[in-house]
């Protein structure tokens, strides 16, 4: 059970991204993350939403993205849900920055940023929705193995 939950719904438009990241940063800061972690959460949430807008919704601004930040004992989880096209699983695998640079595919870069900033990433497709969960452990709590 989540101890606390914060929800937020945005239209799938680039102009909404600023609001999203301020929201995520505000909550993360209030939870006591240090500034670096706050920024990592902010940036990851931003990247994930930008991905959805650009890829899942193909830049059509008339859809919605549902965001949730939940806090449990040892972790913060940002959940991003959308009803757009399915995620390309290959983009979850690309981890080699040198390869990304060489082939200049910036699609992989966004995912790479999220991976570098968060502790865990979970993706599932459920009932026609993409559900992406980005997890960061709270300061001083060790992740469960």
């Amino acid at each position, binding site marked *: 059970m989540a101890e606390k939950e914060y929800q937020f719904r945005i239209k799938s438009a680039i102009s909404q991204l600023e609001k999203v990241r301020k929201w995520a940063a505000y909550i993360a800061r209030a939870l006591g993350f240090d500034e670096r972690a706050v*920024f990592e959460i902010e*940036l990851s949430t931003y*990247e994930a939403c930008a991905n959805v807008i650009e890829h899942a919704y193909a830049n059509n601004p008339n859809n919605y993205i549902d965001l949730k930040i939940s806090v449990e004992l040892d972790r913060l989880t940002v959940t991003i849900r959308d009803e757009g096209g399915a995620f390309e699983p290959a983009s979850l695998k690309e981890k080699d920055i040198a390869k990304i640079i060489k082939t200049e595919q*910036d699609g992989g870069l966004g995912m790479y*940023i999220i991976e570098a900033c968060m502790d865990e990433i979970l993706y599932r497709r459920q009932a026609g929705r993409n559900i992406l969960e980005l997890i960061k452990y709270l*300061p001083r709590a060790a992740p469960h193995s």
Partner: protein
Amino acid sequence: MPKELKINLSEKTPDGVHVFKVAGTLGVEGSAGIQGLLDACLKEKVYRIVLDLEDVDLISSAGMGAFLSAVGELRKKNGDIIFAKMQDRIMTVFRNLDVLDYFIVADDVAKAIDRFRGGELPRPLTIEELTAGSAAEAGAREAGPARALFSLLAAYADILGADAGLDRKLSQIVDVTANYLALSQCLFVPLNDGLGLEPAAARDAVPVLNERDRSVLADSLPAEKVSAVEKLPAIKKELADWAAKSDVRFLLPLGAGQKPVAALVVGGKKDGSPFTNEERRLLRYLQTSLELALECYLLSERAVGEPPGAKKKIERKLMEMETLFTVSRGLAEALETEKMLPTFLMMATGQFSTDRAVILLYTAGGGFEARAARGIDDDALPKLALPPEGLAELIAAQTGPALVDTLARTLEGRDRRQIQPFLDEGFAALAPMRFKNSLIGIVGLGAKISGRDFEADELRLLGALVDLAAVSIETARLLEKTRKNYAGLVRALISAIEAKDKFTRGHTERVTRYAAVLADEAGLDEDRRQNLLFGAVLHDVGYLGVPEEILRMPDGITEEQLAELRRHPLIGVNILKDIPFLKKAADAVRHHHENYDGSGYPDGLAGDDIPLIARIVAVVDTFDAITTDRRYRKANSKEEAVEEIRKNRGKQFDPAIADAFIRLVENGRLDVIKAKRPHREV
């Protein structure tokens, strides 16, 4: 509304360096703008670009993508992009993406421009170097041998953990090692035909050994770890000749169980220099890693042709083994013993399906104390401490991890009692952690959750894991020692200040202790805590530059003298400016007289613009000043000090920090630190 991206040409030097000031968000919103700028520069043949990013609050993958694609083009034209004045948060993006070695970053615009004239910033890596996977190595080499070693260990872990055949892994490892140590040669020799492997060589390797030589080698290899050739006790003559002729320095027997199934032949350094201790340590680590890789390989070979049940078991074991590479990767990344120990325990408990584990480390006092634990109450930890004789001796005498029950049966009389706490706390195995033949620690592992006993091969695996941890811990200690040397420098500075003014004697020490307690209360992360403590210790270092007669003034100094006195933060920063290690701590030195409402000095910063560590030092500094004797008055009470801080919360002090501090004082938490308390941090 999202901030518009603004780009202005702020400077153009006679030699064609263009400085652009960028403000706003370099995300999906701004990437088109920056892309446009860079395209235009290329078109106009402007190849030397400095981007002042002071007012950029975010760079996303889109922005980074634009930089990455432009910088390649610019470098082809002998140009570059140099980034100046990045905020910490922007630095985080570069750091997390691991592209700091790829781009050039400068503190300020002047330095950035200088870079184009062959200034002092480090050379960026080429894309080829980055692709060859040597980025971490090359960058780290400059940052000191220990750090470089870690990046090499991480490289091993990556190679071993990759999804590739053993042949390929071995040749990569041999290659990386030979490269790193600049070896004349390095050769992997399978000694057992059943391995079905080809020898893998790097550099101008000796002619591959024939079968007879290989069997001689197999017979000559001792059971111990890394062996310098000249120290091999009874080396066969043929082998000795071969070793001498071919400049072989080390033979690493690779056991994968008990009997060596392969050996790593390590040649001399290309430049003929001797091996350092760190390099020998690296060989030891390499040996353990290779043994694990071989064991995985043999297990998977065995799985072929086994009945499904047995096969499944082997495959499960194999999967477990592979997570070991994750362990070594994790250790290599932790870099500090304080972070490494919990990482290790987390992985070990997961690996062996137990809920508890402990690491005891050798202490200056001669015994072993629990330094990290998982699944055990803090209260129980002191009971697990061991004196150097008795159980610790027995563990030291074991070849590898031993079962607690077995150890208990061996011990007699008084020594028997030492093992009781381990039995009480549900420990099943104890493993010696050795480094260079001396016992540096003991790892205890709890009974399995399933209730099953540890099997022999699991104990062996635990032994390998503990070996990895031992090397990592020793390497981390090396790093910490460097840091301690800085601490020595810091102490010297303190004595210099205190020699000048007897009233500051003890002041810095108390302020540092108060800051430490407050840091713990506020839950500062380790980096910031460290910077805060250094900052607290050094906050008054600038007094060194203030004339003594002003410091000694009994009372009532003139305006002019006051102005002189108030220069001490800036003087302090100047004293510390060349010590990279204290760069962040210098924030506290510069800003500890800033007031929260902006009325302080030297920069008149307000609110959150004052670095956090400086806001903390401001509170504890004032508290100590009020509660101790000054040259012109006697000490006031704690209550009076609290009243003063409360009165000034939100004016002089950050209200949150003032409140937290007052809470500490009122709960009596600061009284404790008047008692002598070891102060390990600095």
